[in-house]
């Protein structure tokens, strides 16, 4: 089995400006935040980001990394809206493809199956059609039905975060929901898996049944061990969402000055520096 372990910066430095990047997870749940933070440190720009969006989208948009966004929603879950995303949207500075959630999945499924589109009922009659003038409908060859022909959403790179992986990229989720991480990987040219822990292949079933083996190494380009790499989003059962920190993120994001301070405090250094700053944040919180 190939050893695909690489460094976070090595993986992310292979991402080029203008690429289409799929980001796994859902809202503020099991997002590959360590990889997102590494992207923030890079000089990459003009990305097309494809995601069930959470703070990954907010951070990348605020840092000016995103030209175009394809999404089903952007939410922090316990906080309904991401202020960085809504502010950018309200300034009118993003190219947007806002899809119905099911349509979004349909586009990924089409890409994973190497089709140019897949049909769905979702979207018919809604303003998603008018807001996305590139969308076409297709008549059924077997009935009078007209379907939305959701174009495939092929990805140059997919970034996902999992609970465990072996060094070859056999990736495991231990929480309640795999989300669509395997689909992102299958729709992508290359996939980087960040993981809480790299384990020996023979140990993969120590913590979960074979049903939790979500993604085969066939779809994985590189594996990076990033403990707490989903912070501040959930990574059940390893850890839940850091709600206090997320609140601080969302509050800071509402004001340019406090956002600059947030960036300086938490996002100015490397990944280790980030986690140290978060630890300091919690130490101060506890004293309060």
């Amino acid at each position: 089995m190939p050893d695909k372990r690489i460094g976070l910066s090595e993986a992310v430095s292979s991402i080029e400006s203008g690429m289409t990047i799929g980001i796994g997870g859902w809202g503020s749940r099991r997002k590959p935040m360590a990889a997102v933070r590494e992207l923030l440190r890079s000089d990459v720009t003009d990305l097309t980001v494809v995601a069930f969006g959470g703070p990954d989208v907010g951070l990348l948009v605020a840092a000016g990394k995103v030209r175009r966004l394809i999404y089903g929603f952007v939410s922090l879950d316990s906080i309904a809206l991401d202020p960085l995303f809504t502010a950018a949207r309200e300034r009118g500075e993003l190219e947007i493809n806002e899809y119905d959630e099911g349509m979004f999945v349909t586009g990924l499924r089409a890409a994973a199956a190497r089709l140019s589109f897949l049909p769905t009922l979702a979207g018919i009659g809604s303003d998603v059609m008018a807001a996305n003038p590139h969308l076409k409908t297709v008549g059924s060859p077997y009935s009078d039905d007209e379907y939305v022909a959701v174009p495939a959403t092929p990805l140059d790179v997919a970034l996902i975060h999992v609970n465990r992986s072996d060094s070859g990229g056999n990736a495991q989720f231990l929480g309640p929901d795999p989300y669509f991480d395997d689909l992102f990987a299958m729709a992508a040219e290359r996939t980087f898996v960040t993981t809480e822990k790299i384990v020996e292949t023979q140990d993969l079933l120590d913590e979960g049944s074979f049903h939790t083996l979500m993604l085969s190494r066939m779809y994985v380009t590189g594996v990076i061990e990033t403990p707490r790499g989903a912070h501040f989003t959930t990574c059940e059962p390893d850890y839940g969402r850091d709600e206090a920190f997320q609140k601080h993120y969302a509050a800071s994001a509402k004001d340019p000055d406090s956002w600059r301070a947030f960036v300086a405090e938490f996002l100015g250094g490397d990944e280790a520096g980030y986690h140290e700053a978060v630890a300091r944040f919690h130490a101060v919180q506890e004293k309060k």
Partner: protein
Amino acid sequence: MSADPTIAEICIAACSDTYRESGEILAHAVGTIPTIGARLAKLTHAPDLVLSDGEAFMMSEAPPLGKTAAGGGIIEGWAPFRRIFDIVASGRRQSMMGASQIDRYGNQNISLIGDWNKPKRQLIGVRGAPGNTANHRVDYWVSRHSARLFVEAVDMVSGVGNDRARAAGTSMRFHHLGVIVTNLAVLGYDDGGRVTVLSVHPGVDPQEVITNTGFALDVEGAPLTRFPTDEELHLIREVLDPRGAGPGKSRTRPAPERISPAGGLSGSARGNGGRRSQRSAGRPGGTSAPWTRRRHE
């Protein structure tokens, strides 16, 4: 004899009534009142209903309000998001979603306010509303009935209304808008697909329904919304939401400003006790909305 029902409890019973002919389907309910309504239906007239915990599990016995399966209950099935979309497409589901705007044909908007290219307010996005309305029955819950919500034309059609569904032809044969339960009334649709008044809640001046709706409504002769039965009140207060129970001593309607904003942030693929919807309404701990049943009084 139970204390008189509150408006919230009347709304819960009206939400429960949406499942009277549903059978064995997944109930998707966004927000506290619809969630209690779905659970009430299961405990009374709709025992075959399938409930979810708002996370990834189907629950034969639901966890406490606002909690996921980790908080208790009995898991009967697994429904991660990928399966939810498959269930939607199969039609074995019924939704009660929120709305930021609804027009006279039941077109619903949860996406944004203002212009698409440069919205005045970006909300959460269309989420699953287009797909839900294309595939199975959808009802709406409006916690604050107002002329800002019931408008002539919505800014972004997320959930498809009756006029557009009819224009779309055979593809929309599964389209089915049920009712709109608000804090003032229960609304339905006439043969032409236009919003109509089915009943006005007890204690509500019918004129208030007209004033707070941005398009013409006929309230003439509208009956009163039914009261919850004693059994339903018992279940709501003692079983489903004991932490919020106790008050509800009067039918006094809460002052409008105490009502949480309409569920413009709702409509996720999953629901029915979803943590997101409850917390996003600013109610940590997942108990009822503060106005649901006031604790003292």
